């Protein structure tokens, strides 16, 4: 297996609310800390990736948010502008008037154009070899397949034209498992687990992109071993603890019970996930981070945990 961070391009996806941005930010930070010149790109311009680095809003132009780590957010219109000027050397920029309106129309009317400008930009960054690693905080599970298959779809729909010429190298890089991989983030809960299993199948059947790893986020710590659990049950059922403390321990007992029950129901989903995925696919576990808010500190914690999982 190729080492995860030795690839050049990692798409991070997952069902909404599972911590996709946390993982993308942590992977990028981990790579940068290991000396790789890293770009992290957020596909959703309204996302909150910047919060994870406490760096102020990200824009289309990459900005250094930590040593060796640059962050940007996708803007298909900017991507089109860059593409027209850099690659087509289109000289009539000044005369075509408000590009925004034309873009809006072309992107709305022509299927796949928005997708290709989005995916195309990050693959372009890889092709130009400006970075050791590009991590993409990509779209949620519902949209990612559509985005990744856009180059092929365009290939079938468009016979000639500038976009057509671009799709070949796009597909080349996307389909190369040495350079490109996809990471699915899940939590050990029913719906995210099911979506992860479905997405893994769809990726295999419909796209050329290699599934590199599944990250299971918010794994609760195991509170008690078997012997300890017996002791806990004994203490929870008796008055000894209250007597010794001369206070009410009930909330603490309930809190422990909550943690144990949650972990148990999650363990079932986790088993189901492990059994349903290819056995050689790496599963990385990220503990539940009991933190006040997401920021650089929690991103560092997540990066350290992922590093430990990857054996660094």
């Amino acid at each position, binding site marked *: 297996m190729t080492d995860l961070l030795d690839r050049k391009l990692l798409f991070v996806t997952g069902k909404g609310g*599972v911590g996709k941005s946390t993982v993308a930010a942590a992977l990028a930070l981990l790579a940068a800390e290991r000396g790789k010149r890293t770009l992290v790109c957020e596909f959703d311009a309204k996302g909150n990736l910047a919060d994870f680095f406490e760096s102020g809003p990200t824009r289309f132009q990459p900005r250094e948010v930590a040593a060796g780590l640059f962050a940007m957010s996708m803007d298909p219109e900017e991507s089109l502008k860059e593409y*027209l000027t850099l690659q087509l050397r289109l000289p009539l920029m000044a005369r075509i008037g408000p590009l925004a309106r034309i873009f809006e129309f072309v992107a*709305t009317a022509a299927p796949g154009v928005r997708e290709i400008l989005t995916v195309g930009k990050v693959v372009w960054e890889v092709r130009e070899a400006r970075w050791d690693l590009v991590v993409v905080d990509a779209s949620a599970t519902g949209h990612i397949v559509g985005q990744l298959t856009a180059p092929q779809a365009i290939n079938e729909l*468009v016979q*000639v034209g500038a976009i057509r010429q671009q799709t070949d190298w796009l597909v080349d890089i996307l389909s190369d498992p040495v350079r490109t991989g996809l990471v699915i983030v899940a939590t050990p809960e029913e719906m995210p687990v099911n979506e992860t299993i479905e997405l893994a199948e769809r990726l295999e059947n419909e796209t050329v992109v290699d599934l590199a790893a599944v990250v299971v986020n918010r794994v609760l710590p195991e509170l008690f071993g078997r012997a300890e659990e017996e*002791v806990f049950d004994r203490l929870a059922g008796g008055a000894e603890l209250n007597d*010794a*403390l001369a206070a009410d321990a009930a*909330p603490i007992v309930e809190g422990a019970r909550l943690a144990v029950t949650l972990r148990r129901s999650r363990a079932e989903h986790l088993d189901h996930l492990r059994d349903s995925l290819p056995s050689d696919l790496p599963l990385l576990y990220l503990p539940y981070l009991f933190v006040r808010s997401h920021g650089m500190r929690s991103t560092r914690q997540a990066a350290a945990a992922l590093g430990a999982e990857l054996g660094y």
Partner: protein
Amino acid sequence: MEQLFAAKEIVISCGSGGVGKTTTAAALAAMAATRVGGRVLVLTVDPARRLANALGLEGFGNVEKPVPASAFAEVGVAPRGELWAAMLDTKQSWDNLVQRHAPDALTAQRILDNPLYQNVSGRFVQSHDYIAMERLFEIHTGGQYDLIVVDTPPTRNALDLLEAPQRMAEFFSSRFLRLLIAPYRSKLINMASRPFYQVADRILGSQFLQDIAEFFILFQTMYAGFVQRAEAVDRLLHDKRTTFIVVSTLEAAPLHEAEFFVDALSDKRFHLGAVVLNKVLPAYLLEAGAAVVAERLVKDAAPIAAEVAPRAGCAEDLVERVLTEMGENFLRFQLVAQREAEQRSELAVSPEVVATVPYFESDIYDLGGLLKLGEQIWS
């Protein structure tokens, strides 16, 4: 909540992904069928098999299906009304729409056969959002239901959903659409539009451009019907019989989206019926006295264990470890509970519209589970 559901005909459940929107919609519909009565439909976009099972159905599709009375009987509930369920099939709904609005069967068939159509029906102009609202309109106009509870697609931008009908109407009357189609209708290309073609041509290639144009020429035959319909859908969403429920958890990102949505609703004069906060940690985690006890357990685990162990008949070292874990666990969860409480207090909506739902420790497997959840939201 009961008053709200008795007074409205359409309840639209929205929020970002992963906050329990679908389950909330189903639970509220089940509650309304049980308590308020009448014929209640839950229209979902989420093909969750578990939800179908929970409703006692094998599965459901674009056509509405009644939830069998036996599913209620099994959990010992005698509903006052009926509960029905349907799932939004985007492709099927688009096909129906084309068949309805096309001037004749031949044109309809040409549109459905167009290679661009599949792509387009799946993607353009937030088609999922629009089709969800369109299907709602269709069912509501059918007049078969006293109440329709709608679960919406996860939107990246909450506004997309509300603006979908309007944007659809605007798209079909847009200047650029006319610009694009014009040269394929006549040989005259307006000088002003020439640069536009040069760019579009360079990007897309003229063949593709022509394919698109042909497709939209066909599509334009449906223009009048479409625009009229989109406007009617928009009116229905603003109608006083329609209300919105915003679902969120107390995590920062979903809550931020929920706040944004609440503002958007009020800006655009839609009715906000309720804010449902899901998966909220239990209140005992916030008790200040308990935190002091938990800290003592961590700090003085050894002496406390020495006192407790002989009386409880347990090994002292095990007791010490258990007490430390219990104390640390409580403090960890308290941190999260405090963060939630802060988020909650910052939520700028009047508290009477907020329903709080505790963290459910197990998944919902049957109608009983849905009703239990529903009762939490209801009260």
